[in-house]
């Protein structure tokens, strides 16, 4: 079911928390680990809460509150979120203390914040939203499932659904990505990640939230038409068929698509299918990339959703994201992202 995107909020390694800006200045990093540019959290929480909250709790909750305020609503009709790894930094602080003291005395503060639904419920707590509250925690399908949940909720007669996703790169995750050689070696500029030189992704993180609704408002960014997730597609050919049939199901076709947002990440092996499709299937579309801005993480498609929203409203594509320019204006946008076995498509339409 197509829904209007009426409010957005994004905190990422770029300056994205201010909705009046659109990637005016792109932040360049010379490291393989991108962390969020913080918003002014005193606008959302009191000093005591800021002290107690972990980093992701702060930027995740704030991104949700930005979207709610942007949509001009007080309380969302329901909340559905996705997070692949929950709140690893606070969980690890709890784990570290428990290992260090050999299970003797540990403080509950970090344990309380360790469940994966903490951000979603914290937003409910702040805006007194007593309605449906869900958290999906499934790798590269986390945000996608929350979107499906939101679409079902609207079919079930709810409206103004706050949907979003958030993840953070913890020290542990960073060390693991290094060890498995998923990461490209340092130093590297995030802006060169798609070049011939080097192999591997840049670790990233972020939170992005959206208010999805049945009716258009003055603030509407565009329409989220549909999404579909695919587990373990095996070849470019299979993905190509999925894309064509996904478009057909949504009364669209490849010719209608102006812009493709590609989940290309800089890892040669996983990019092969994306590069192949970019060259051979999307020959007439402007191709846009985003992982040089936010890094690779399992809910990065929420950052891409933010990018699609901004492009539709501004009817402009920032130079910083263009991979292949065919001079098309961003009316119909297709997103194709994947993380290991989890592949997903999303379709957007400007109003």
């Amino acid at each position, binding site marked *: 079911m197509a829904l209007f995107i009426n409010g957005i909020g994004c905190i990422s390694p770029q300056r994205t928390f201010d909705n009046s800006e659109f990637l005016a200045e792109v932040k360049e990093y010379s490291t393989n680990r991108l962390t969020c540019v913080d918003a002014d959290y005193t606008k959302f929480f009191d000093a005591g809460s800021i002290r107690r909250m972990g980093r992701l709790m702060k930027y995740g909750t704030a991104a949700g509150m930005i979207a709610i305020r942007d949509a001009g609503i007080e309380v969302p009709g329901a909340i559905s979120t996705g997070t692949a790894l929950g709140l690893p930094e606070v969980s690890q602080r709890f784990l570290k203390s428990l*290992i260090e003291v050999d299970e003797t005395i540990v403080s509950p503060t970090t344990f309380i914040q360790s469940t994966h639904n903490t951000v979603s419920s914290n937003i409910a*707590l702040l805006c007194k939203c007593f309605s*449906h509250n869900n958290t999906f925690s499934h790798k590269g399908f986390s945000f996608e499932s929350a979107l499906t949940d939101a679409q079902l909720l609207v079919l079930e007669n709810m409206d103004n659904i706050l949907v979003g996703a958030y993840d953070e790169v913890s020290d542990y995750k960073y060390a693991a990505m290094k060890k498995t050689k998923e990461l490209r070696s340092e130093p590297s500029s995030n802006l060169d990640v798609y070049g011939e030189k080097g192999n591997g992704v840049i670790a990233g993180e972020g939170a992005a939230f959206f208010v999805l609704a049945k009716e258009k408002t003055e603030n509407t960014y565009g329409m989220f038409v549909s999404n579909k997730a695919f587990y373990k597609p095996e070849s470019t050919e299979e993905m190509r068929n999925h894309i064509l049939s996904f478009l057909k199901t949504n009364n669209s076709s490849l010719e209608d698509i102006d812009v493709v947002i590609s989940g290309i990440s800089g890892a040669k092996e996983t990019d092969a299918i994306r590069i192949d499709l970019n060259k051979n299937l999307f020959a007439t579309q402007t191709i846009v990339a985003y992982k040089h801005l936010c890094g690779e993480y399992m809910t990065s498609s929420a950052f891409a959703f933010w990018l699609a929203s901004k492009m539709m409203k501004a009817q402009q594509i920032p130079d910083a994201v263009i991979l292949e320019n065919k001079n098309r204006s961003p009316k119909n946008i297709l997103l194709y992202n994947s993380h290991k076995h989890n592949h997903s498509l999303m379709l957007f339409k400007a109003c």
Partner: protein
Amino acid sequence: MKVFIAGKGVISAIGNNVAENFASLRNLQTGVSKITVLPTRYAETLPAAEVKLSNEELAQRCGLNSSEPRTAFLSSIAAKEAVADANIPDFKKWRTGFISANTVGAMDKTETIYKYYLEDDNTDKLIEEDPYDEGYVTELVANQLGINDHITTISTACSSSTNAMAYGARLIKANQLDIVVAGGCDAMSKFTLNGFNSLMILDTNPCTPYDENRKGLNLGEGAGYVVLVSEEVAATLAKKPTTILAGYANANDAFHQTASSPEGKGNFMAMQGALEMSGLSTKDIDYINLHGTGTSNNDLSEGIAIQRIFGDVPKVSSTKPYTGHTLGACAGIEAVYSILSIENGIIFPNLRFQTKMKELDFVPVTELLENMEVKHVMSNSFGFGGNCSSVIFSKAN
């Protein structure tokens, strides 16, 4: 449109399958005892409800590698039992989903890996799968079940598996899927044991939910799944489904991160919402399988909310004195118990109950009740973050 329950599967401290669980429930056999499997300094002091099989034994039973997380073994055993029980002809021809819940992921493994990581942040141990990745557990089992149309994991603390069943039912009603294997799993871990202990809500004796002198909960582990099917699939089954998923609701208490509001607002809204969807009145509910953890806060908020909605409170009991609190698995396990109650006309007792809570007008069932007519059962599950969910199972006509 009706959503039928075509199969069920369970593993818990009181049995490795549905038949063993049913026998223990009838024989008033608790699973709460001294900790012997989880290596912890609290083995002698904090009782829990463990599945008394080692990782190697569980792995062997389910065909996964013994180095995988314990949560996956429990999930695999119960989910496979549920699918076999449903015995759906041409399983492959339908659009099928696996919606699983868990809250600890591979935490049992992390506790070991993290120790190595603290000593050396370049240890080879880091090559293993991400321990906070709850979806990893789901995919291991989805691969075994051969399900790939729709896979996801829900993590809303102790209400997780109710929300998994509800999400599955909604996908069937929206005609996106025909069959959904839904439920949840969680293994014991030092992380949760120490976490709940730090909140001072663990009973040092076997728990006594809804008792005036209750002292807290006992942790448990296990998994429980149901196979939800559309009317179209139900019509093809040799064994006619006994039960339907008649109603469900997800609400948020929006009161405190880990405590329920004194009046049980979220609990009230969840039960009310499930009743509304089912089209039933409070008088129709024959039995409520309580969340009933045994903590002072949960039982009071839940009890007050029940009193407000029902007035004349039906038969109620918590089965957590048998299984402990299995967190992300509890609603899956209790779904299986609720269905057993309907199928067999039996209401399971709230073991170890002695003294009525002074704030409440009702007491739970304390003896096994047989030869009852049980048509409609409500099952509650409430969690951290104010997540409150209720579900209603009804006898299929």
